[in-house]
């Protein structure tokens, strides 16, 4: 490790509504090194990054850089920038239709000539210099979208760093930079990162892809449950040790739930379905069975669920519920057949933000209360109250605006919307516990288990491996739109899942 830390973070603690997200975390990033930050979902990675970026303030913690010390309790984006941090986020903030030169100038300013007019010549000269410095092979006048994905990612980095003459004076933070890249492009970007580091830039690299971490990082820091479990030079780690650092202690063996119906009659039979990023997927789900679906970002788990439900048109294959074929791309037919779909990204696809809790709960199913020209309000309210109890929703009244509820309670309402609807045979859940605090998560899973106990088949896509291991009868691992592994041994362990997700060989 280098003797000159570009940034030293110590004692970072952060609490969210009673949950300890970060507990006395330390991190030291040296100039010229690539420092990988790894950890599962909920480990505190993103919270730490957000505090460094000044998006969140810490409850305690200090940041020391060559330029001075900052109290992270009063972190702001401006202070983060002054301390030399430069962030490149996964959600890219570039303008595909504008040119390379425009993308590098927006937010920074243009070189001007006489009369404050933009001087194309001077802009071009600067942009060419930046492109050369960051090894990007592109014409300044070309629209950004004509560049390859890796080159676009490099341009985002170049934009963040272009005005830093001294590459040692800053820390480049990359949050899952390769998540959206095809494999060949990943290599290009990783090579570029290595070059930037050898120029003296300190790189903090957040990634789920352990093979990349093993390939590119100099130092690895692992977080788990808000604590730092280790910081080690990568050379001293094996792939398995890395998995152990992320998963932590040996996982408690899964106790089979004997009360649950298992492997009953087949509910779902999907044959060779394809569409979007998914190709040639076949699977069956039995009555009372909970099937997990997992994979790296972009593996196609969400798409598979959307194809099954008809929210996305499938190009080929057949889907049948209880032996009855379901029309492709028809949500109404899927609902009639008995499917239910709890989408991921609750805010965009699940919640009717301006409506009440009751209206959210009965959305799409109001017809049940329509009798002789009237929506029967009393009966609806009674059902809503019953759902509050069954699905553990905490709301002050059915008329409370849903926006006032916590994320976990909103999610329970979205789940209750489907599970309280009669005749559900197959329940599809996409990342049901994402962004939900630990206490509510367990309650959500108990709701899922009860749906299965009532005889429905359940498919749950999740990246929360521990939760999958605890709840599922078997877990299907996807990669690049295909199911590549099936983990069904009892007990299912997190280590086994991580191993399967990251393993390279393809079994089809």
């Amino acid at each position, binding site marked *: 490790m280098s003797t000159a830390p570009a940034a030293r973070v110590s004692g970072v603690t952060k609490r969210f509504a009673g949950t300890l997200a970060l507990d006395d975390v330390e991190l030291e990033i040296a100039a010229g090194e690539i420092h990988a930050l790894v950890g599962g979902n909920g480990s505190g990675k993103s919270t730490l990054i957000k505090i460094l970026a000044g998006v969140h303030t810490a409850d305690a913690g200090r940041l020391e850089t060559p330029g001075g010390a900052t109290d992270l309790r009063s972190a702001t984006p401006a202070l983060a920038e002054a301390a030399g941090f430069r962030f490149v986020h996964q959600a890219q903030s570039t303008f595909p239709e504008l040119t390379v030169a425009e993308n590098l100038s927006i937010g920074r300013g243009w070189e001007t000539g006489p009369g404050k007019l933009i001087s194309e010549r001077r802009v071009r000269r600067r942009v060419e210099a930046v492109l050369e410095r960051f090894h990007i092979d592109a014409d300044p006048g070309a629209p950004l979208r004509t560049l390859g994905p890796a080159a676009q990612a490099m341009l985002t980095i170049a934009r963040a760093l272009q005005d830093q003459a001294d590459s040692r004076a800053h820390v480049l933070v990359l949050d899952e930079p390769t998540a959206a890249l095809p494999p060949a492009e990943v290599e290009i970007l990783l090579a570029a990162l290595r070059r930037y580091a050898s120029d003296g830039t300190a790189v903090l690299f957040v990634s789920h892809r352990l093979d990349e971490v093993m390939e590119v990082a100099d130092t690895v820091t692992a977080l788990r449950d808000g604590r730092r479990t280790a910081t080690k030079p990568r050379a001293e780690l094996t792939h398995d040790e890395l998995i152990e650092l992320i998963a932590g202690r040996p996982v408690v063996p899964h106790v089979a739930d004997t009360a649950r119906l298992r492997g009953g009659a087949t509910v779902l039979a999907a044959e060779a379905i394809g569409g979007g990023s998914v190709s040639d997927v076949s699977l069956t789900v039995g009555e009372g069975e909970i099937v997990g679906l997992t994979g790296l970002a972009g593996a196609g788990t969400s798409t598979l669920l959307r194809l099954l*439900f008809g*929210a996305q048109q499938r190009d080929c294959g057949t889907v049948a519920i209880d032996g009855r074929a379901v029309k492709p791309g028809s*949500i*109404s037919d899927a*609902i009639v057949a008995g499917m239910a*779909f709890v*989408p991921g990204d609750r805010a*965009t*696809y*699940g*919640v*009717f*933000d*301006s*409506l009440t809790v009751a*209206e959210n709960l*009965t*959305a*799409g*199913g*109001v*017809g049940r209360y*329509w009798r002789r*020209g*009237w*929506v029967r309000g009393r009966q609806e309210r009674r059902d809503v109250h019953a759902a509050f109890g069954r699905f553990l929703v*905490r*709301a*002050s009244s059915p008329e*409370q*605006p849903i*926006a*006032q*509820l*916590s994320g976990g*309670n909103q999610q329970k309402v979205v789940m209750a*919307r489907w599970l309280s609807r009669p005749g559900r045979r197959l329940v599809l859940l996409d990342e049901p516990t994402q962004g939900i605090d630990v206490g509510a998560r367990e309650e959500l899973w108990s709701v899922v288990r009860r749906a299965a106990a009532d005889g429905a088949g359940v498919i749950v896509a999740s990246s929360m491996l521990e939760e999958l291991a605890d709840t599922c009868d078997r877990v299907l691992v996807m990669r690049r739109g295909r199911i590549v592994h099936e983990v069904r041994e009892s007990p299912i362990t997190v280590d086994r899942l991580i191993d399967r997700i990251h393993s390279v060989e393809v079994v089809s």
Partner: protein
Amino acid sequence: MSVQSSTAPAVESSPEGARPAPARRRRLLDFAEAYGLILLTIAVIAFFALLPASSDTFFTMANLRIVLVDQAVLMVVALAVLVPMVAGVWNFTPGAAAGMASIYAAQVGASSGSFALAALAGIAAGAVVGAVVAVLITTTKINSVIATFAMTIIIAGVVDLETGGNSIVSGLPRTFNTLGTGEVLGIPTLFWLAAIVAAVVHYLMRMTPFGRSLYATGANRQAAKLVGLRVERLTALALIVSGVLAGIAGVILLARSGAGNPTVGPGFTIPAFAAVFLGAVAVRPGQWNVGGLIAAIAFLGALNSGLTLAGAAASVSALASGLALLVGVGFANVFARQRGRQLETS
């Protein structure tokens, strides 16, 4: 805050046992937010009833009748704006469509002598406009603002073509006159008519699966699709309902003025939008709702009438209406933000 109270014992969050106070304060805020506009309307009425310049005329039956009839047309046009708005679709056509409906009603009335045929023709004209807009928006996916804006221009052209710019004054069935000047229980018949239409729309929006589905569509189109709602069909239906309402507004307009005037219709569009926006801050704050719309129309009607009778110029009335809209919506935003903050800190 109340969300969490059932899990965590209240002791933790209220060391001084001061828990009921914020709850009461919140209920008071809720009430002020929902009924503030109605209270303000009463205040405006009281003000002009007492103000020397207008006190002689403001609180008289004659003035009340004028205001009520004036607001009847506006009310129905505003309802035609509101219904698609609930589904998240902007419809600029109701004013122009009402004008066109009154022209066709007048033509058919003059040639056939039948009130029923005339009214039917007016309503049908409105429905056709609604259907055309529905097809345009749902099949070509043209932005609703642009599509309906273009339609208002086209309607103006059609009306001009039909009338050559001249009013249709003669030959209207007598029933129009009876309807326009008639009274039931001392209140103008046209006002009753608008009130019935408002009640029907309220029923449609709040008590039928159609209305509830429209609210869901407007709140989150993506989520609405995923719960199995056919959002395109709902949008189309909302626009056709809107067209029918514009047609009814046209018939009321014809009964009020006794002549088919080719120019008055489009003038209702902007005040109708103002009333719908202002109405969204009252009764069911944050939602396009019929109750709030009635409150807004009452408020704007009282304000305009009072100012007119107090001798203020027409420009003052326009300024006051515009300001009321900005202040009302501004306050609603502040209220909403305050609640957001209350939530975050809880």
